[in-house]
């Protein structure tokens, strides 16, 4: 949480920086300044400054209420009769493949901005509960990002539209069809004045139906629109090739990767594929491993950028200048961009990148991101052509979209036509332009000029509000359809549940515009594929497609294109010469705003800022100092002639002279999560806890769409900032929460937060592994040196202290929680007669920091798997968020351009668990397999355990956060039946997905065998796009986790306390270029 004196913090940091006294590693600005307030906060389990009680209850009132409720609870306990009788409702005719109590998994695909994200959905007795990636699909390989996993919650959203409405009055679908036909008959034969506005279309069936509509109404105006996603990608390709072409990167072949404002591991439809391929080439399996090298040139810090070996922070116009210079260095004729002076590192960086790209002989690639301008994209294509990347690291293919178009230009034309009164009937499907269109288009006003307007969407949104008719759309888990993923492979979208409400599928809605009628979505999809696959083998191919989640051999064909080598004609697509540049991006959690009502995504801490439930104006420390603002100060942004007020948030690693704002907030028509209540917005200590039961009236956060001008670049438009003296806005930020007190009991012991993996030994040339640092970093070069040293010293292996056998080592450090000196050597544990964990299974985990990019997928996976409640904005501010796994980001090095290390932190499952000895009721205890267990029904909520946890991984249910699970039939349906739903007053934490361990064990025991390695896949591990998390039996020397734990890179966090953590980390290894100073 930001303290009120961050301004002083910034000054303190500056002073320290100048005097050279700044720490080398830190987690937050507050820690960097290291004020006494920070120290105090770190030592406390929960911040004492915050209000403890939700209502302003006096002590006397409290006692009165307490007395009454105690008496009542006594009464409740004394009913003295057995529990109320429950009902069992068996099937009348149970489906053949169903075994009650065992989940079934179905493959389908989640549509998002037109593209399919292949998923595998877990269904309990017909109730979808959990979404994971489809392991068989090349674009997922089992992983799924946060918003994909959280989409299951949207289906059970009680605020979804449930009825066909006309002027907000309920109607029947048949009423609508009758009126539609009437309106269509009023049009001339060509359908002049009819417009169809959809999101991007990749679905072959949908495209075929739209073709039929176009055949019926040749003058139909079909516009596709998805905000702030792929318009630069598309236009960049057109600039480079003269036509729309999709690129697919093959990072498995890339030794050198240059990313230009690209978050390719998180953003875009192919993100998971790229993350998997990148991490496979990044993992250090041995010192001989040839790992890839990545250079990142970016304005806003990105998850992908945290894994860069070298990172250069440049404002958007300089990114384009850099791309131009790079192209010129690599033999592409490109005009240089005269721009304001570049930072000192620019030239050196440019030289090194150029040399590395040249030297990689085709095994290199330049990737421009969704936030890079079209020209940067075109230059990247030209460079890839020049360095021989095409065919090796990048493949060009036919566009996946059915009809790629310049969406912004089309939308602008449509709005012009609407304003001119040329559009008589408009059908809006799957997109929400009143909210998501750039502010200058003023879509809402234009919409009102259309005589007859219809919106088809899952919830009654801003666009629906301004249309006469609203047709509710089903969630994708309730409908049939088809869609293509990033590489073009077609997935059949299949329903897992009958529609919860009276919804109309997209295909049926489109059918109403054709001359046909009466076909269901299922029939339409089948008919299309019967034609395409042929009648003969259709049944087999169809069944196979449904089962596997995709139809084989449907990926896009490669297209032989060559990028223009003369880039001098590429237009300048940024604004050069402004003091401050504006970057508008999709929000990392709620995306374009479609997930505004998704509580899991709202409460997910956004990477870097760790802000929840809000958006903020991100800027670098230098820019904040220049503007004389601090965190949470409200400032006024003026860009493109529009002014907007919002809070500042200082993000470390942000480029200077530019600010970043995220779309997706400030919705005026959303549900109980997406809207804010007056009391919470004006008095941050209002009464709202958890998910409110009513819909608020105020928008949550700033609406950045208003700031966006369709004629100005989305990234790099000039912006002015004016301070608003005296006005602040409180953000719920988790950056300071659960900071680990790494110095512990001995303040003199100065453990660095981010330690070097190797430290030189005084007498020799060899390095020794550092035993310090919560996070450890090293370079592959140092690792090689170290391993060579090991070989030389093979005869005297003990001379080199390795930390890799933490598990059995006996630290001698006097400050250890359980000093081994006090016990006989064979009993290094605090318990009399230590348990022998060497037999049977011993569960453990490793987390590879070399590949973790901090994308948050594991956090959502854990939340969905373990029924973790949402606490609401206010309680997040009070440090009461419930996530069992959090991602700590550690900064080190240069304060203005730090290196970031991501550290996912679940429970460590210490063998010598400090939490267990302090529990007065033995509600937390160890299993014989080394899992630190929580017994909810035994917990009385003393919170001693969480007070005693050095890793701060325990979470307490301060309030009845799960109330709605029991009270609302819909909210309860998403719960995992294999995990207890916890109530108020109970402690909880990561269980290593004990339900998954148990179910694998029972399965194995029933078959009379042992659990195989890889049979238990815990939720966070399953979904990790970079395979950073590995779980297994450490007693099995052949298991993946045991092998990783035996490696040099393995270390236990704070293992000098002798806690013997079962979760250990692999130090972050990177591959710096020796030509560049820093690393």
């Amino acid at each position, binding site marked *: 949480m930001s303290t009120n004196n961050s301004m002083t913090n910034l000054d303190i940091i500056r002073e320290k920086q100048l005097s050279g006294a700044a720490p080398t590693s830190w987690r937050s600005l507050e820690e960097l300044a290291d004020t006494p307030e920070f120290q105090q906060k770190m030592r406390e389990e929960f911040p004492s400054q915050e209000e403890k009680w939700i209502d302003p209850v006096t002590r006397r009132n409290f006692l009165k209420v307490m007395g009454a409720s105690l008496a009542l609870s006594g009464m409740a306990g004394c009913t003295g*009769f057995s529990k109320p009788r429950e009902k069992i*409702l*068996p099937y009348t*005719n149970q489906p053949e493949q169903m075994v009650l*109590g065992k989940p079934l998994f179905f493959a389908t695909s989640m549509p998002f901005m037109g593209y399919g994200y292949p998923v595998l959905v877990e269904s309990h007795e017909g109730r979808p509960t959990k979404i994971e990636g489809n392991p068989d699909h090349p674009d997922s390989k089992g992983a799924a990002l946060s918003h994909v996993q959280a989409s299951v919650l949207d289906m059970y959203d009680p605020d979804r539209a449930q009825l066909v409405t006309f002027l907000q009055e309920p109607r029947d679908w048949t009423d609508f069809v009758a009126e539609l036909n009437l309106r269509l008959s009023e049009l001339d034969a060509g359908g002049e004045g009819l417009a169809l506005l959809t999101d991007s279309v990749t679905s072959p069936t949908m495209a075929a139906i739209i073709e039929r509509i176009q055949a019926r109404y040749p003058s139909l105006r079909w516009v596709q629109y998805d905000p702030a996603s792929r318009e630069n990608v598309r236009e960049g390709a057109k600039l480079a090739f003269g036509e729309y072409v999709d690129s697919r990167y093959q990072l498995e072949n890339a030794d050198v990767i240059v990313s230009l404002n690209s978050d390719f591991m998180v953003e875009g439809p192919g993100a998971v594929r790229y993350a998997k391929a990148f991490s496979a080439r990044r993992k250090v399996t041995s010192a001989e491993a040839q790992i890839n090298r990545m250079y990142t040139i970016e304005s806003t810090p990105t998850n992908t950028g945290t894994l860069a070996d070298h990172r250069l922070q440049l404002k958007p116009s300089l990114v384009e200048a850099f791309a131009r210079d790079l192209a010129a260095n690599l033999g592409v004729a490109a005009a240089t961009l005269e721009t304001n002076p570049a930072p000192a590192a620019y030239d050196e960086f440019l030289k090194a990148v150029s040399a590395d790209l040249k030297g990689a002989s085709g095994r290199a690639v330049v990737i421009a991101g969704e936030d890079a301008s079209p020209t940067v994209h075109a230059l990247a294509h030209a460079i890839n052509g020049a360095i021989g990347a095409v065919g090796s690291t990048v493949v060009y293919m036919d566009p996946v979209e059915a009809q790629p178009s310049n969406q912004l230009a089309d939308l602008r034309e449509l709005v012009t036509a609407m304003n001119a009164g040329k559009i008589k009937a408009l059908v809006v499907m799957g997109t929400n332009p009143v909210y998501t269109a750039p502010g200058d288009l003023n879509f809402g006003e234009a919409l009102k000029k259309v005589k007859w307007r219809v919106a088809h969407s899952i919830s009654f949104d801003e666009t629906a509000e301004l249309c006469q008719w609203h047709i509710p759309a089903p969630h994708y888990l309730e409908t049939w359809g088809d869609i293509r993923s990033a590489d073009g492979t077609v997935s059949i979208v299949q329903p897992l549940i009958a529609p919860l409400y009276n919804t109309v599928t997209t295909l049926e809605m489109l059918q109403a515009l054709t001359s046909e009628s009466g076909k269901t979505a299922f029939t339409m999809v089948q008919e299309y594929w019967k034609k395409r696959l042929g009648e003969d083998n259709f049944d087999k191919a169809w069944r196979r497609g449904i089962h596997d989640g995709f139809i084989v051999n449907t990926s896009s064909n490669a297209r032989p294109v060559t990028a223009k080598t003369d880039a001098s004609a590429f237009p300048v697509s940024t604004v050069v010469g402004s003091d401050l540049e504006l970057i508008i991006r999709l929000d990392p959690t709620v995306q374009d705003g479609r997930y505004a009502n998704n509580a899991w995504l709202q409460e997910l801490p956004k990477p870097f800022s760790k802000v929840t439930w809000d958006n903020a104006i991100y800027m670098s420390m230098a820019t904040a100092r220049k503007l004389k603002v601090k965190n949470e100060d409200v400032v006024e942004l003026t860009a493109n002639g529009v002014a907007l007020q919002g809070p500042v948030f200082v993000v470390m690693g942000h480029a200077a002279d530019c600010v970043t704002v995220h779309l997706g907030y400030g919705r005026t028509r959303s549900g109980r999560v997406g809207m804010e209540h007056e009391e919470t917005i004006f008095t941050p200590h209002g009464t709202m806890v958890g998910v409110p039961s009513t819909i608020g009236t105020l928008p949550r956060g700033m609406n950045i769409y208003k700031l966006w001008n369709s004629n100005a670049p989305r990234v790099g438009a000039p912006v002015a900032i004016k301070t608003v003296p005296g006005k602040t806005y409180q953000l719920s930020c988790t950056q300071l929460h659960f900071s680990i007190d790494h110095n512990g009991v001995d303040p003199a012991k100065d453990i660095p937060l981010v330690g070097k993996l190797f430290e030189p030994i005084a007498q020799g040339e060899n390095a020794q592994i550092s035993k310090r640092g919560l996070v450890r970093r090293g370079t592959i070069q140092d690792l090689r040196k170290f391993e060579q040293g090991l070989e030389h010293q093979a005869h005297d292996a003990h001379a080199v202290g390795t930390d890799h056998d933490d598990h059995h080592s006996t630290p001698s450090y006097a400050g250890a929680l359980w000093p081994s000196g006090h016990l006989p050597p064979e009993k290094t544990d605090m318990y009399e007669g230590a348990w022998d964990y060497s037999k049977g299974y011993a569960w453990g985990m490793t987390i590879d920091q070399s590949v973790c990019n901090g994308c948050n997928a594991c956090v959502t996976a854990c939340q969905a798997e373990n029924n973790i409640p949402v606490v609401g904005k206010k309680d997040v501010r009070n440090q009461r968020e419930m996530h069992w796994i959090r991602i700590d980001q550690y900064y080190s090095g240069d304060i203005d351009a730090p290196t970031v290390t991501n550290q996912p932190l679940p429970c460590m499952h210490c063998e010598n668990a400090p939490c267990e000895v302090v529990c007065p009721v033995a509600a937390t*205890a160890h299993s014989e397999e080394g899992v630190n267990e929580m017994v*909810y029904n035994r917990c009385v909520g003393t919170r001693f355990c969480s007070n005693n946890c050095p890793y701060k991984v325990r979470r307490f249910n301060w309030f009845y956060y799960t109330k709605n699970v029991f009270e609302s039939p819909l909210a309860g349906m998403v719960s995992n039946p294999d*995990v207890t739903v916890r109530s108020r007053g109970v402690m909880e934490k990561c269980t290593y997905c004990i339900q998954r361990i148990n179910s694998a064990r029972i399965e194995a*025991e*029933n078959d009379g065998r042992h659990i195989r390695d890889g049979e238990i896949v815990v939720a966070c591990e399953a979904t990790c796009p970079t395979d950073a998390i590995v779980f297994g039996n450490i007693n099995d020397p052949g298991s993946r986790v045991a092998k990783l734990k035996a490696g040099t890179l393995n270390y236990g966090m704070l293992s000098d306390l002798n806690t013997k953590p079962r979760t250990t980390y692999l130090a972050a290894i990177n591959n710096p270029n020796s030509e560049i100073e820093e690393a």
Partner: protein
Amino acid sequence: MPQIFHKNINYQVKTALVAVLLLASAAFSAAFMWYQSGNVTGEGNHVVQPVQFTHEHHVSGLGLDCRYCHFGVERSSHATVPPTKVCMTCHSQMYTEEAMLEPVRESWKTDKPIEWVRVHNLSDFVYFNHSAHVNKGIGCAECHGRVDQMALMYQAESLHMSWCLQCHFNPTEHVRPKDQITNMAYEHPTSLDQTTEVDGKQMTQTELAEHYHIKSKINCSTCHR
């Protein structure tokens, strides 16, 4: 100053104190016994069902195996309460006019489930798994009692945690050969030396437990997650 209380009050107070103590402990014991009784645990209570199904007739009378109806028991945590279709396999032919079976026919016709009343109800934080027990030689009757003698179904045991643990601490004497799982009348050997024939070999209870790799778990997470 004169004494406020008479001397005898001393004895009265002492007697009252003892009486209160006695009463309190009596009340405590009574409450404890009450809580252990079937009134609270549900043990031994008959339940009124929409169809007065008799296990006695179907099991002892007709000789149906438990798994004919409870077909999920070897594969899943749930034993599975049979779908209406299972009833109708026979009752579409037999007793087709019987008034008692009207709810079954109604369910089959309307595709609405029969609303059975749950007899064995564990708390929501307890995760019992049928397959883990029946595949390790723990018979149905071990927990459910002599279902073949129950005209109306009732809960035979308390289902207290202490009752579960009795067996989890000492599973050996409760194990039986797997082919005897659904045998309601099966009798365990009276002594540990007595052998039973399992898979063609004579085994003592201890050997049988080893043969089935019985490692009964007493970790909290075995049942609570």
